[in-house]
């Protein structure tokens, strides 16, 4: 009898808590803009995911604390742990979309691919900042997906362009060997079509070294192959535990580190530090600020980290991946602000947010106003181009920290854009009936 009473009491308490929680959510949704953050602080990819999650959270939280949100409306933030797992990512999406979600940042190409068909149906845009499906840059086919500031194909073209510069011109790539080591998942396979096209065009040999998720920390075979094949350059598309292991293995086989270049996701401070002294000279692409010398980051420290409103360790502010997370949230925040201006509404919907992102114009003046002058290259989204193919730079590890090692390098837009459009058309055909764009263009 006692146990029945306990169960009844427990159920009542649970229901009470549940309803009050629901009531709070609804109440908040009416006077707040709800931004779910799909993050991963656990699992094999936590090494990279934690910094990104902290950066994303802290910038938006800072806007709440310092400015009272955006346009006088607070942001309601909710993190959902995906573990970089596509199934869990979709579960997070389904669990949060009904709460008035404005935008999703999957932080996984696998999850992004799952959400792309859902975005137009649920009218909630997907922002895959510098990752995801490259073809989604074609806004006429993918009005609900944004991959500003660059696609992986843009990135791959920049790497080859940079290598060409080192060799005295792209024509000198003829006969060279370029190795490509990548996480054998949707993410790592994404740039291969473009790299193959570039190999054909410029006459270099592309050597591929896939690393399975289960082999991330066991790459000796891949690097023995590298040692035997003796590529002139190595390019890496790694994530999570794959990055530090690859850098350690490269040091181990004495690969010249100045000829080893990672994508912007293989640019973490911990990744390079793992290689110790031997990692000096390792390079990676980047499109977000290096270091913590920015007024907006000072505000994050003051209003969020020092105030105990974040799990961020103050020393990690300014790290490459932390800053990347901040830039992601800058784009979210500017999308919301633009949407508010366009619609005249304070509390916006996913449809408004789509318009805001499509009209995004983060110019130098605005970056300065945000306290982020020089933090990123000015970026602009148009209805046709949701990535923008913005310039990126190369940074180099000096044994202790990253230093900018090149100026801004433009992607090979003339080559990439037609391929992106062809790939978008192919995607629409394969997923027929893919809806024709009916969404209005705010520009």
């Amino acid at each position, binding site marked *: 009898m006692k146990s029945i009473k306990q169960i009844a009491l427990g159920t009542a308490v649970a229901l009470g808590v549940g309803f009050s929680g629901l009531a709070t959510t609804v109440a908040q949704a009416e006077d707040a803009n709800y931004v779910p953050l799909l993050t991963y602080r*656990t699992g094999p990819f936590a*090494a990279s*995911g934690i910094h990104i999650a902290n950066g994303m959270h802290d910038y938006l939280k800072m806007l709440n604390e310092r400015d009272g949100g955006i346009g006088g409306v607070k942001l309601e933030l909710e993190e959902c742990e995906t573990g970089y797992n596509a199934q869990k990512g979709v579960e997070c999406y389904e669990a949060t979309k009904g709460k008035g979600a404005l935008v999703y940042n999957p932080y996984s190409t696998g999850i992004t691919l799952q959400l792309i068909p859902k975005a137009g149906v649920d009218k909630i845009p997907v922002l895959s900042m510098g990752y995801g499906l490259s073809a989604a840059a074609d806004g006429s086919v993918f009005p609900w997906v944004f991959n500003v500031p660059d696609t992986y194909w843009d990135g791959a073209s920049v790497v080859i362009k940079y290598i060409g510069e080192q060799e005295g011109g792209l024509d000198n790539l003829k006969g060279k060997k370029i190795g490509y080591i990548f996480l054998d998942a949707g993410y790592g396979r994404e740039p291969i079509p473009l790299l193959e096209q570039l190999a054909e065009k410029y006459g270099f040999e592309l050597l591929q070294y896939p690393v399975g998720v289960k082999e*991330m*920390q066991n790459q000796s075979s891949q690097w023995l192959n590298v*040692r*035997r094949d003796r590529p002139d350059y190595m390019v890496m598309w790694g994530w999570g535990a794959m990055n530090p292991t690859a850098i350690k293995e490269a040091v181990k086989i004495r690969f010249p580190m100045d000829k080893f270049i990672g994508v912007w996701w293989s640019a973490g401070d911990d990744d390079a530090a793992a290689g110790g002294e031997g990692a000096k000279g390792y390079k990676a692409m980047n499109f977000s600020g290096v270091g913590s010398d920015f007024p907006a980051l000072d505000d994050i420290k003051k209003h969020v980290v020092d105030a105990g409103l974040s799990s961020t360790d103050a020393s990690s502010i300014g790290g490459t991946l932390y800053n990347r997370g901040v830039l992601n949230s800058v784009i979210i925040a500017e999308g919301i602000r633009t949407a508010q201006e366009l619609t005249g509404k304070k509390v916006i919907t996913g449809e408004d947010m789509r318009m805001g992102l499509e009209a995004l114009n983060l110019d130098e003046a605005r970056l300065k106003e945000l306290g982020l002058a020089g933090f990123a290259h000015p970026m602009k989204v148009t209805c046709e181009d949701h990535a923008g193919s913005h310039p990126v730079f190369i940074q180099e590890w000096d044994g202790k920290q990253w230093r900018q090692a090149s100026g801004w390098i433009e992607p090979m837009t003339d080559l990439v854009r037609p391929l992106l459009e062809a790939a978008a058309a192919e995607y629409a055909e394969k997923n027929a009936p893919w809806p024709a764009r009916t969404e209005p263009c705010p520009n």
Partner: protein
Amino acid sequence: MLYDIFIDPFVQMYEMPDFFLQVLWEGFVAGILYALIALGFVLIFKASGVFNFAQGIMVVFAGLTLVGLNENGVPAYLALALTIAAMGILAYGVERVVMRPLVNQPDIILLMATIGLTYFLIGFGEFVFGGEPKQMITEELGLPTGSTAIEFGERGLVILQHIDIAAAVIAVLMVAALGIFFNKTRIGRALRAVADDHQAALSVGISLNQIWAIVWFAAGLVALATGIMWGARSDVSFALEIVAFKALPVLILGGFTSIPGAIVGGLIIGFGEKIGELYWGGLVGGGIESWLAYIIALIFLLFRPQGLFGERIIERV
């Protein structure tokens, strides 16, 4: 095609002997490390018939405890001692909370319990240490770093990492110590008795609970050694848990109950997958080692279903 399969790999081995030696060395080191992981599984399976699904996370847990303590100002050797103590407490806790209430339950229930233990340790570990990867305190523990390059021929080079040499030495010492423990000590003999027959062992006064706690502790020590060695090669993070499952083909090959089987199985898999990947992998686009290990194990199983050194089970009806 036939040339690529049957002749070219051997020509390569002949023409680049330094590279072949490097492949053999890497295979040897990988084999030793696989064997270390497999040992943890074997110890527990031998004494209790349980496939310990949690062995992988025990590797992570031991590594994180060691590094986490050191990060908090505990000197390396004291941290090592405290980690050993922590593995002892874990072993005692597992015996009291997980194993003891499940005595006489079917093996599948015990397997499920170790899966539960895995998820508990993942959650508990992340709660205590966070999800960020940590650098192994290799130098603080007095383990060697750096490498030695041996010149071979005119431009040949074989590079030996000092930490890999240390891994091999530690693995050999560990196996020798376990061998002596199992064969020469009273507890070791009791453990073997438990492995043979639980009820018979109980009837002669052997404490099943005590033996299980000891065996989980031994598996914890093996996990710690594995965590240090693998952690030094990459870093200590929860991703290491996945590496532990490299031991599965080793167990299939070497048998679930044999310590020499784990060693020999580990070496066969280590050499096999490296040589296979480096000399034949290119024919199918590379990346074959993750499944090649299972193919090697299955081929052996065709001829010895109980594994190389496993006990042959004959049930009469």
